[in-house]
């Protein structure tokens, strides 16, 4: 006897038996949890945009749900509609490419890196987390080569988040090394996703930072050389399905426009060390602003004023030298 196919309402019912999952879905769909129960009990049906959000919120059940929803709602989840939605959700809008290129063409040099990265990250936040389940996106860049012309660490350069993360993550920046997901990605020059950071035997090393359940990173590249990576963390496990991974790669390609040609390095130069844990780094970094202003004042007094970006780079190099036990970096002043 052929087994009767489970309906989408039954499937949803089994999923929301887990109260946490019920809450998560309600949050992602921006609806009251009772509404989910009503759908399960066939007391009401989702609106078209809720259908799409439901499919996106349950990537592991997408196929089964889609078939069922299709048979019940027909054109509301028609293939063409779905493809269009998928295009909108996981492809960067052409208007945005225009905006980035226009900005790059006109922006003062001193603002180029920070404003372009900011522009791109704001867009990426909205597109990668439309339901505001919580993500953090960080531009991670290679530290300049040390005396032996090797890249020994990476630094988190500019970060933006949606709750529970803060919107501006710049003050949380730390160095990352070979032990990190970002380090792995930069060394290998390809995207890596870690879908469950709680698993001890996770496929790739990564920081299991506050709120972070899964993470993906894509290298920032030009002509086969690498300048860093775009690191994305999510509060959800299994968040980075293939369309999202492709979207992250597209954003990493865009972020490459914010870098100077000299910021890209041959992968043979990447020999990352192991950097201390975040807690240890925070102790070192507590005086960062003070050291930054001292560096700028000293440079100005010597008649070679530095931009804040240049001064930051020098202070980070000093931290790197201290943390990795490298020969002390020249202060460059």
């Amino acid at each position: 006897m052929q087994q009767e196919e489970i309906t989408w309402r039954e499937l949803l019912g089994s999923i929301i038996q887990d109260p946490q999952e019920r809450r998560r879905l309600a949050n992602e769909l921006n609806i009251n949890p009772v509404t989910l129960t009503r759908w399960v009990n066939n007391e009401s049906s989702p609106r078209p945009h809720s259908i799409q959000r439901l499919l996106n919120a349950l990537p592991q059940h997408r196929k089964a749900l889609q078939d069922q929803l299709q048979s019940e709602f027909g054109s509301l989840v028609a293939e063409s509609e779905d493809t269009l939605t998928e295009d909108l959700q996981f492809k960067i809008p052409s208007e945005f490419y225009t905006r980035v290129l226009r900005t790059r063409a006109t922006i003062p040099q001193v603002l180029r890196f920070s404003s372009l990265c900011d522009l791109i990250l704001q867009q990426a936040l909205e597109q990668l987390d439309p339901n505001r389940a919580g993500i953090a996106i960080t531009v991670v860049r290679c530290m300049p080569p040390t005396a032996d012309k090797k890249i020994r660490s990476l630094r988190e350069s500019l970060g933006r988040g949606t709750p529970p993360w803060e919107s501006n993550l710049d003050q949380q920046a730390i160095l990352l090394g070979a032990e990190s997901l970002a380090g792995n990605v930069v060394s290998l020059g390809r995207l890596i996703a870690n879908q469950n950071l709680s698993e001890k035997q996770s496929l790739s090393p990564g920081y299991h930072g506050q709120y972070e359940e899964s993470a993906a990173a894509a290298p920032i590249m030009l002509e086969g050389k690498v300048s860093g990576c775009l690191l994305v963390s999510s509060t959800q496990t299994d968040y980075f399905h293939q369309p999202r991974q492709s979207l992250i790669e597209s954003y990493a390609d865009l972020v490459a426009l914010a870098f100077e040609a000299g910021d890209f390095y041959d992968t043979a130069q990447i020999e990352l060390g192991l950097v201390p844990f975040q807690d240890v780094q925070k102790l070192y970094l507590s005086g960062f602003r003070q050291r930054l202003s001292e560096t700028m004042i000293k440079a100005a007094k010597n008649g070679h004023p530095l931009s804040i970006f240049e001064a930051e780079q020098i202070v980070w190099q000093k931290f790197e030298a201290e943390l990795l036990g490298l020969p002390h970096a020249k202060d460059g002043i």
Partner: protein
Amino acid sequence: MTKPEEQAKSGNVYISDPESGAEMVRLIDQDRLVTNGMGGLFPERSNDFSGIQRVLDGACGPGGWALEIAFTHPEIEVVGFDISQAMIDYANAQARVQGLENASFRVMNLLKPLDFPDNSFDLTNVRFVNFLPATTWPQFVRELARVTRPGGYIRLTESEWWYYSTSPALETLNSLVIKAIQVQGGFSQTGRFTGILPLLGNLLRQVGCVNIKLVSHVIDFSYGSAAYEGFRRDASVVFKLFQPFITRMQVATQSELDDLYNQMILEMLQEDFLGLMLPLTAVGEKA
């Protein structure tokens, strides 16, 4: 090239080029900073949107305030408009990728008759347009009143331009922008203040609003505060992007601005840096 006074009269509220993207991203950040700092989207009504079905955001820039309402209140229809095509393209793209079917954006000039029927919105909102010439304000507030339904709200938010701080360089840069706005035709009598704040309530009264409330907000962006990093960054962008405007108005030379800018960056990095922004909202009900 457009003369400053012609630009202002045309309704272009942007001091720097809105098509460039740098101003856009600054406004996106600023919007978030200010909305959070003021306590939400409509703090004068405890963020209560009951009874509100259609919202209009005038001179909406990249649409942050409007998009946030559309996201948090799917039942509300939100319309934004701005004179910049680039800002509107961006806002519409944002609405699309976020699946916000209840948000839409159009190119429109705040200083021209608005292309909306009478009494068609429950809440109309305009903020941070103090660059507009003083003579234009009564007319556009009248237009906002026309498209607001009786019993609906008109909400105007402005700030003195815009930092109170312990940084002398920041204070000087501030004063230069205000002087430049005065040259362009702002409310200021002396060049010390933009002069708009005392007038907000009266502008609403003149178009027949009742139950007018003036609500001030305090945003602390002192060193170590939650808003510090965002405002420090905003200052580093805004006082770079606005330099052409200041030199065009002939209130400072490029060399003076370069020195002040570098000094401001340094002073805002100090651990004893203190700063406040004090936006004022005037909200009234159309009689």
